[in-house]
């Protein structure tokens, strides 16, 4: 699977409160959440992004609250994936569970500039910056998580465990 789109670049410690503020957490409706995605860090976010675009950020992306509404909001906004130098632990797991692809690469996140055109091969984890013609390799997804993908995510894995 390949993702292609523009990069929108943010700094370190983008927390889940700015990804989706708690004032909108009285619902789990994804379209509603998407409307307010990244609102407190970039009020034009929803207006400027196009389906397939990517968020690129620094260290500790998704820090703070355990709200799954954060990856849900990002995914529902049309963002195809997130590239960051590192991810906060709970966000990493949540993204995976919500089917939001995320890629860890210090070099890519360091180099990519706002509005650069990016292409990512999800299977190989290769990130290509089409604007600068540079290529990066992201940290591979841990083996156990790949197995979870193969069992159709956490839901499929739960079914398998319960059927035993």
């Amino acid at each position, binding site marked *: 699977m390949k993702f292609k789109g523009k990069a929108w670049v943010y700094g370190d410690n983008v927390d889940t409160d700015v990804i989706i503020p708690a*004032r909108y957490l009285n619902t789990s409706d994804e379209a509603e959440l998407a409307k307010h995605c990244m609102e407190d860090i970039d009020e034009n976010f929803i207006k400027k992004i196009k389906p397939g675009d990517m968020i690129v950020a620094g260290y500790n992306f998704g820090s703070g609250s355990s709200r799954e509404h954060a990856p849900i909001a990002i995914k529902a906004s049309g963002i195809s994936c997130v590239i960051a130098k590192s991810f906060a632990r709970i966000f990493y797991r949540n993204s995976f569970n919500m089917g939001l692809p995320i890629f860890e690469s210090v070099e890519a996140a360091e180099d990519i500039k706002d509005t650069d055109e990016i292409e990512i091969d999800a299977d190989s984890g290769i990130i290509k910056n089409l604007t600068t013609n540079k290529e990066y390799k992201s940290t591979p997804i841990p083996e156990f998580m790949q197995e979870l993908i193969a069992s159709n995510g956490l839901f499929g894995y739960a079914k398998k465990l319960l059927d035993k």
Partner: protein
Amino acid sequence: MGMSISQKILSAKSRQDSVSPGDIVLADVDLAFANDITAPISIDFVKKLGVDVFDKGKVALIPDHFTPNKDISSANQCKIMRDFVRDGDLPNYWESGEVGIEHALLPEQGYIKPGMLIVGADSHTCTHGALGAFATGMGSTDVGFAFATGKSWFKVPESIKFVYTGRRNKWVGGKDLILYTIGKIGVAGALYKSMEFAGDTIKELPMEDRLTMCNMAIEAGGKNGIIEPDEITFEYLKERGVGEGDYTAYKSDPDAYYSKIIEIDVEDIEPQVAFPHLPENAKGLSEIKEDIKIDQAFIGSCTNGRIGDLRIAASVLKNNKVAKYVRLIIIPATVDVYKQALKEGLFDIFMEAGAVISTPTCGPCLGGYMGILADGEVGISTSNRNFVGRMGSKSSALYLSSPAVAAASAVAGKIISPDEVVK
């Protein structure tokens, strides 16, 4: 090589002789819980699987964030929880009037025991490590998985040991120790790691302060915070009718592996204030040279809404008045804390000072309700996060402190030492 307390719990719960950092284990959980924001998604997961929860006694549902229901949407979320509890006849549920903030309520009511493996759909689940349990926050889907299967998968974390020595200075409590620590290592300083708090200072630290410290492990990126159970732990449990036969008290081996050992001389630590917009921006009071005027002070939350916190606040507020145009909001974390504070006459002191007292809720901590900051306003809070917009408007600014400093600042109308206002 020996194992840390975190490794020991994960190895026991995954029925292995030993586990090493980096291992992935599927382990049995002793308690899984969620709140009114996170539970609806967990419940949906269980319903889609078409199963009952794995063990009614090991699941808890706690409507604490937006209750009493703040609006129609929150009321509907609470209704999803209540219907699920009623249909499944689940015992561990608290209605408004009984409910408290999950991370204050569960230890207080004797649900948390040493050696337990706990997952909660709330990032501050790490609080419960104060009792020598392995407790970590997860998303709703992971907790839904635990509700259904009784299991969760874990990557065994490396541990960092924080060794605190020396006597605490006046007004310095668990909050100051943890803010200082996060200031030292940064908000990603313990990313994916276990934070083990140890040393002579911790051995003498009251349980409530230990809960405050473990509560904020997540603010350094930590997977869990944990303290070896000792006499203070056993005494706390005994007061709650939990006997020594009811749990396993694990201790780290002397030759356990730590990725880092950080030694902290507590005598160097003065009351701390974390500046906007990250908990790592901690400064000692004497380092603050400028006047920081405030519009609101909030004393409460899963970090600092316990009885000891309210007693300290009352000791500062006694015979004092909240400054003009400043709001002081005090929220006891649980019904028991509320009753105790009322009984001890703390409410009289708070009301004389001009504070407003709310029923237990997370409320303003996450910018929910019960004290939201307007554009450009400045708040000081005893909660755990001061991210952009955390307590309201994205142009507001939030400082974090102990209850003593927050109470003193409400009186002075600016951030100040409790010594300046105590009468």
